[in-house]
């Protein structure tokens, strides 16, 4: 859903970070998506190609990390990968699990070039 507006919001956040750090060029943006994020990878890529020329340097690369849908069983503490959206954890008495990854659209890293010689590594 709404890959275009999500990528717009992503780029707004990347721009803010680039500005804070005095970037002359944004080289790479790394994001994470998963099966329950509700986005299609190809459409995210297309939206990025269309919108990213507005970033400093105008030649930014998007790296998409696709993570599986992972969860932790609330009763036995075991970490599991959820396949085909089947959330019943049959090896355990409890069907009660908490999703730990694969349901969000996360901005992981931004790689920039700066004129400065001292590199800032914290956001």
């Amino acid at each position: 859903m709404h890959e275009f507006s999500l990528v717009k919001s992503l780029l707004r956040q990347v721009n803010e970070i680039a500005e804070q750090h005095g970037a002359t060029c944004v080289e790479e943006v790394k994001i994470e998506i998963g099966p329950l994020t509700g986005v299609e990878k190809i459409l995210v890529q297309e939206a990025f190609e269309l919108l990213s020329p507005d970033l400093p340097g105008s030649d930014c690369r998007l790296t998409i990390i696709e993570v599986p849908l992972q969860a932790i069983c609330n009763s036995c503490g075991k970490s599991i990968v959820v396949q085909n959206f089947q959330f019943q954890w049959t090896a355990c008495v409890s069907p009660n699990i908490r999703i730990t990854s694969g349901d969000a659209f996360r901005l992981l890293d931004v790689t920039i070039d700066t004129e400065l010689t001292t590199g800032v590594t914290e956001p």
Partner: protein
Amino acid sequence: MTKTTIRVNRDIQAEKRERAAAFREKLSRQGTLVLNLVSSPGTGKTALLEAIAKELKGRLRMGVLVGDLATDRDAQRLAPLIPVEQLTTGGACHLEISLVEQGWQKLGEPELDILFIENIGNLVCPASHDLGEHMRVSLLSTTEGDDKPGKYPKMFRTSDALVLTKIDLLPYLPFRVEAAIEDARLIQPDLDIFHTSAITTEGIPDWCEYLEQQRQKLVASVQTS
């Protein structure tokens, strides 16, 4: 030139989620349970709200924010029964927290026991937007087919309750209630499931009793914290 990699590791919707959490917190403190009703168009969200308003009249103070792309038809249907504010989104296919905050202001921020939000008819996008609700309620009607939960996993996964609507039509349809429930529970085992008809009012008293209990639970949890 210095190349630097800045670690961010943040959900890009974090800001909206925080706003929704603040709204939820605010309404919790005043004892208002917020419900987000989601379903396809025509499942019977407005009809269910009409039935609830009649059933709980004089027992609970209620209000509705109802979303549609255009017209105030649903608000007009509900207005004789319950305080209501229509949210029209133009083209947008789901509600967002900013629209809910505006609607809540327009409604006059009354002291309520339950605030219902009727979302735009759509089983896709509303699943990804926290409206500051305490509970998300999915509706599925017998005319939509019993195979729908598995097709829209995010919506059913993120729901707390499932209301099967139009059960008065079961004699005329090949809808298998057990199959629909099984499909939904594979995705969300914790769903509280209800069977209702807004026409015959079958199942409406049970559903309303559940709503009263949920509201009492909220009040109790706010008092202890």
